[in-house]
């Protein structure tokens, strides 16, 4: 999978020099570079990208999760970090894949990028990926009573968990105005 010219990209070159086989794959498409790191080196890679004076990624654009169940890829979950460098005006995407599909766990990067706080909670809320070291890993969008993780591909699309009992609505409703 590794792009033969990937080393031409300065950030990928830096990362592969530093992490070697900790880098699972790299990818470039129309100027956007991506690297996938092993989960045990993920936190270290983020710290490196932030601290290294050539990379200098000082801004976390976003952090999101992916469930690759229907792509039939292993490991199932992926966490993607989008970084921006205001120093070099460039962007980079770092991916990592928690190894355990039944209980995906990955390091939190909130202490490196405080902006990761809410995105990590969202990934936890939607996909059930736990971030170790997160200061407040609770649901952010769904309510506390919600059971399961709604953006997992095996969450039934018609499943509802209402907080209030839902009234049954008859088809014929006298007095109601339908425009």
């Amino acid at each position, binding site marked *: 999978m590794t792009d033969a010219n990937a080393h031409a990209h300065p950030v990928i070159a830096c990362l592969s020099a530093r992490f070697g086989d900790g880098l699972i794959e790299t990818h470039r498409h129309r100027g956007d570079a991506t690297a996938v790191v092993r989960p045990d080196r993920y936190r270290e890679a983020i710290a490196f990208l932030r601290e290294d004076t050539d990379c200098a990624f000082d801004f976390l654009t976003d952090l999101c999760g992916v469930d690759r169940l229907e792509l039939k890829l292993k490991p199932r979950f992926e966490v993607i970090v989008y970084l921006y460098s205001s120093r070099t005006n460039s962007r980079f995407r770092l991916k990592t894949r928690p190894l355990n599909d039944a209980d995906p766990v990955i390091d939190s990067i909130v202490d490196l990028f405080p902006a990761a706080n809410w995105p990590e909670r969202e990934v936890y809320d939607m996909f059930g990926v736990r971030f170790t070291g997160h200061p407040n890993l609770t649901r952010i*969008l*769904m*309510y506390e009573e919600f059971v399961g993780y*709604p953006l997992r591909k095996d*969450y039934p*699309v*018609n*499943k*509802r*968990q*209402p*907080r*209030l009992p*839902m*009234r049954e*609505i008859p088809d014929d409703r006298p*007095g*109601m*105005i*339908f*425009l």
Partner: protein
Amino acid sequence: MAVKEGQGGFFTSRLSDGIAWARKWSLFPYPFVTACCGMEYMAVSAAHYDLDRFGAAWPRFSPRQADMLMVVGTISQKMAPILKTVYEQMCEPKWVVAFGVCTCTGGFYDNYATVQGIDRVIPVDVYIPGCPPRPETVLDALMKLQDKIQSEYHPLTGSVRKSA
């Protein structure tokens, strides 16, 4: 003296008509605005479409002072108990307008997060479809609600709504 609907004499039915006339021209909306339909609600409220012609322009941000609950925008399962509380805090008489297709049926949000129509939580008087509805549609709905209020029986005491 308990007067049932349709059994009142000339005086009580004239009185009911008079109260209905007063109520339909002084609707105080409570804008329960949760989503993009709010933009259209603002357009309706502003001078160009001028809800004030119908006496329904002055939004009351306390449910206790409002008698028309305008639910404008998607209601999530998380928001549903709050909507119900606001509805219950409103004094009788009160009417509910479902503004936009998300409030009517959930719209295209057929998913884990969205209530599939607010009538599953509270009773609704007028359903306005559209994503978002045109302001003319909202005015049409308001006039139809006024017709409904005029046709209802308004006792001096007690509830206008016979069943919730």
